[in-house]
C-alpha cells in the first residue's frame, strides 16, 4: 500500500514514481481538500525545490534514506526557516522564523519534503483545533463514505454544514493532513494529549515519545517540563521510521538525554505470551462511552486470547492529573508567554506611551481569550501567597502521579492499555457549546498523566464507531522503551486491521491518486 513509507520509498527507488510527481500530487490534493482547513501555510515553491533535489539524488542512486522525497507537514508551532510560523495566533501572524526547529532540520537533512505548516488551536491550547485565528479544522472522516452511510441528513447541504466533526486537538491540522493523504507523516506536539487525541479522532497512529528523547529546540514552548514533539502517521512502522530520524541528544536542548539512540526496525511479533498488559481501572472514567469501553474490553481479550498476561492495575492518583496539569500548565504558560511583548518579533501595538502600556496593548491585541485566561490563572498560582499552596502542591501531586506508574511498571507490567478519548469525534456545533477549559479538562483526562510522568504513549486506530468514525486505544510504555511500545502497538495494529478511510470528496483528477494507491497495493 502506498500509504506506507517503506513501500513508497521502494517505489521512489525503483522509479515507479518520482519525488517531483509525488510532491505535485500531494500539493494538488492539498488544494482539493482546502475545505478541511488543515494547512495554514503551503510552501509550494520550496517543497518543489526540495523534491527536485531529492529526484537528483535518486537519479544518482544516492538517496539520503527512507525519508528522502517523502512529503511531510509540520504543526505551525515549530519554527521553520523562511516560512511563516504563527501558532494560529495574531501574536505571531507574519512572523517568519529565522531558523529551523531541530526536528524540522533533521527531517530536511533526511531529504523529506516540507509541504507546509498545519493548523492548530492557538498556541496549542485546546483539544479541538477549533480555537485558532484561521478557524477550525474539519475532520476528513466527516466526508468519508463510512460516516455518511451512518447519518441520515435531512438534505445534502444540511449534512455537510452542520454534521462535520472535529479533528480533536491541538494538532488537528497535522492529523487532518495525514488522514486525507496529503502527506505521509506530520509533526504535532503533545503536552496533555495534543497528538494522541487528534490521532484517535482521525484514525491515525499518534506517538508521544518519552520526554527527553526528542529535541524541543524550535518548538514554541507551552509547558517546558511536559512538551514533546509528536509524530502522526498512518501506520506504526512509519512512526518508527520518523522516530528514528528525530530521536537523540541535541546540544541545543539541555533537556534531551545524553544516551545514544539507535534507530530501529520493528520486529513482527508473533508470540505475546511473555507480555504483561496492565489495565488501569481508574481509566474507566465516568463519561467514557459504552462503545469505547467495549472496544477497550475487546482489545484486552484479544491480548488474553493470544496468551498475554492481562492484569487490572491501580494508578490511584489518576483523577488528580487534570487538576495538577491545570496548575502546572498555566504556571509555565504564564512564564513562557512573557516573551511576547512586541519588541523583537511578532505583533506590536501602536500604543507608544510607555513600555508597559505597549506590552499590555500588544498582548491584549495578540492573544485570544484562552491564552489570556491561562496567563492570568498561571500568574495567580505563582503569587507569593499562593505559590506553596498551588504551584508547589501541584509539583508534589505530580510526583505521586509519576510514582503510580513507577510502582506499576516495577511490578512486572510491560505496557498499559487504555482508551485514548471518551468518545468518537463530536460534531463541531456540539463541541463549541462548552468552553475551551471545560473541553480540555474533559478530553485530556485519559492522555494527560503520560505527560505528567514523561512516559511514551501511542494511539493505535482500532475500530469504527457506530457513527462510522475512528476509535483508538492508547498504549503507555516505560520510559525510553519506545521499541517495546511500538512493537506491541504494531502487533495490535495487525490484529485489528483498521479500515482505510473512503474519501469521496476529491475532484476527478485526484481520484486517480487513490486509484493508483489502491492498485499499487495489489502488486
Amino acid at each position, binding site marked *: 500500500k502506498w500509504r506506507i513509507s517503506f513501500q513508497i520509498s521502494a517505489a521512489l527507488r525503483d522509479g515507479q514514481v518520482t519525488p517531483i510527481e509525488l510532491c505535485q500530487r500531494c500539493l494538488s490534493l492539498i488544494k482539493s481538500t482546502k475545505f478541511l482547513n488543515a494547512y495554514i501555510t503551503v510552501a509550494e515553491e520550496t517543497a518543489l525545490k526540495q523534491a527536485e533535489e531529492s529526484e537528483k539524488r535518486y537519479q544518482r542512486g544516492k538517496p539520503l534514506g527512507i525519508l528522502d522525497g517523502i512529503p511531510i507537514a509540520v504543526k505551525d508551532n515549530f519554527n521553520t526557516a523562511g516560512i511563516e510560523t504563527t501558532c494560529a495566533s495574531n501574536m505571531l501572524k507574519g512572523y517568519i522564523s529565522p531558523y529551523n526547529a531541530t526536528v524540522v532540520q533533521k527531517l530536511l537533512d533526511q531529504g523529506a519534503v516540507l509541504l507546509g505548516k498545519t493548523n492548530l488551536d492557538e498556541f496549542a491550547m485546546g483539544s479541538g483545533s477549533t480555537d485558532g485565528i484561521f478557524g477550525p479544522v474539519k475532520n476528513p472522516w466527516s466526508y468519508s463514505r463510512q460516516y455518511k452511510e451512518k447519518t441520515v441528513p435531512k438534505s445534502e447541504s444540511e449534512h455537510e454544514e452542520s454534521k462535520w466533526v472535529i479533528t480533536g486537538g491541538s494538532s488537528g491540522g497535522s492529523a487532518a493532513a495525514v488522514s486525507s493523504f496529503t502527506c505521509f507523516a506530520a509533526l504535532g506536539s503533545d503536552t496533555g494529549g495534543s497528538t494522541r487525541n487528534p490521532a484517535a479522532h482521525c484514525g491515525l497512529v499518534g506517538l508521544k515519545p518519552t520526554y527527553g528523547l526528542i529535541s524541543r529546540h524550535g518548538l514554541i514552548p507551552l509547558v517546558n517540563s511536559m512538551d514533546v514533539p509528536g509524530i502522526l502517521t498512518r501506520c506504526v512502522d512509519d512512526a518508527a521510521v520518523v522516530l528514528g530520524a528525530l530521536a537523540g541528544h541535541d546540544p541545543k536542548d539541555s533537556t534531551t538525554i545524553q544516551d545514544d539512540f539507535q534507530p530501529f526496525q520493528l520486529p513482527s511479533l508473533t508470540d505475546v505470551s511473555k507480555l504483561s498488559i496492565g489495565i488501569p481501572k481508574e481509566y474507566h472514567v465516568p463519561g467514557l462511552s459504552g462503545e469505547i469501553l467495549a472496544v477497550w474490553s475487546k482489545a484486552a481479550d484479544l491480548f488474553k486470547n493470544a496468551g498475554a498476561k492481562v492484569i487490572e492495575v491501580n494508578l490511584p492518583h489518576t483523577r488528580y492529573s487534570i487538576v495538577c496539569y491545570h496548575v502546572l500548565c498555566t504556571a509555565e504558560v504564564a512564564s513562557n508567554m512573557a516573551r511576547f511583548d512586541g519588541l523583537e518579533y511578532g505583533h506590536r501595538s501602536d500604543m507608544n506611551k510607555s513600555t508597559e502600556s505597549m506590552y*499590555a496593548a500588544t498582548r*491584549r491585541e495578540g492573544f485570544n481569550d484562552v491564552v489570556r485566561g491561562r496567563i492570568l490563572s498561571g500568574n495567580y498560582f505563582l503569587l507569593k501567597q499562593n505559590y506553596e499552596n498551588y504551584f508547589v502542591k501541584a509539583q508534589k501531586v505530580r510526583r505521586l502521579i509519576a510514582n503510580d506508574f513507577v510502582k506499576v511498571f516495577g511490578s512486572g507490567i510491560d505496557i498499559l492499555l487504555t482508551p485514548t478519548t471518551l468518545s468518537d469525534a463530536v460534531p463541531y456545533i456540539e463541541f463549541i457549546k462548552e468552553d475551551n477549559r471545560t473541553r480540555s479538562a474533559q478530553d485530556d483526562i485519559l492522555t494527560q498523566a503520560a505527560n505528567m510522568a514523561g512516559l511514551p504513549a501511542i494511539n493505535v486506530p482500532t475500530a469504527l464507531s457506530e457513527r462510522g468514525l475512528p476509535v483508538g486505544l492508547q498504549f503507555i510504555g516505560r520510559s525510553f522503551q519506545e521499541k517495546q511500545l511500538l512493537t506491541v502497538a504494531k502487533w495490535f495494529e495487525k490484529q485489528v486491521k483498521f479500515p482505510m478511510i473512503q474519501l469521496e470528496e476529491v475532484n476527478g483528477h485526484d481520484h486517480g491518486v487513490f486509484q493508483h494507491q489502491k492498485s499499487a497495493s495489489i502488486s
Partner: protein
Amino acid sequence: SSVTVEVLDHLEHLALVDFRDLEGVERLRKAVQFADQLHEVNTDGVEPMDSVLEDRCLYLREDDVTEGNCTKELLNNAREKVEEYFVAPPGNIPLPKLEERETFLQGS
C-alpha cells in the same frame, strides 16, 4: 473569596494582560475553584517534582561561542528599529493605577 479586586489589579500588572470583562474574572474564579481540588490530596513528606529527568545529570555546553553574527536576521522580525537597536517606548513608567486606567476592573 481570595480573588479580590486588589488581587485582580495586581495580576493585570504582573501579567500585562487584562481581564477585559466579567467573563475574564469569572474564568479566573472558576480556575481557582478547580485548582482547589488539589488540597484533597495528602502530600505529607512528598518532595515537589521539577522534572521527570531529575535522576539524570544535566549537562551544560562549553562556554564557547559557536554561532552568532546574525544581527540582520534577528532585526528582521522587529517592527520598530533604528540601526542595530530594537526601539522601545519610554520605560520606568508603571502602568496607571486602577482608578486612572481603562480597565474593566474599574467598575468593580
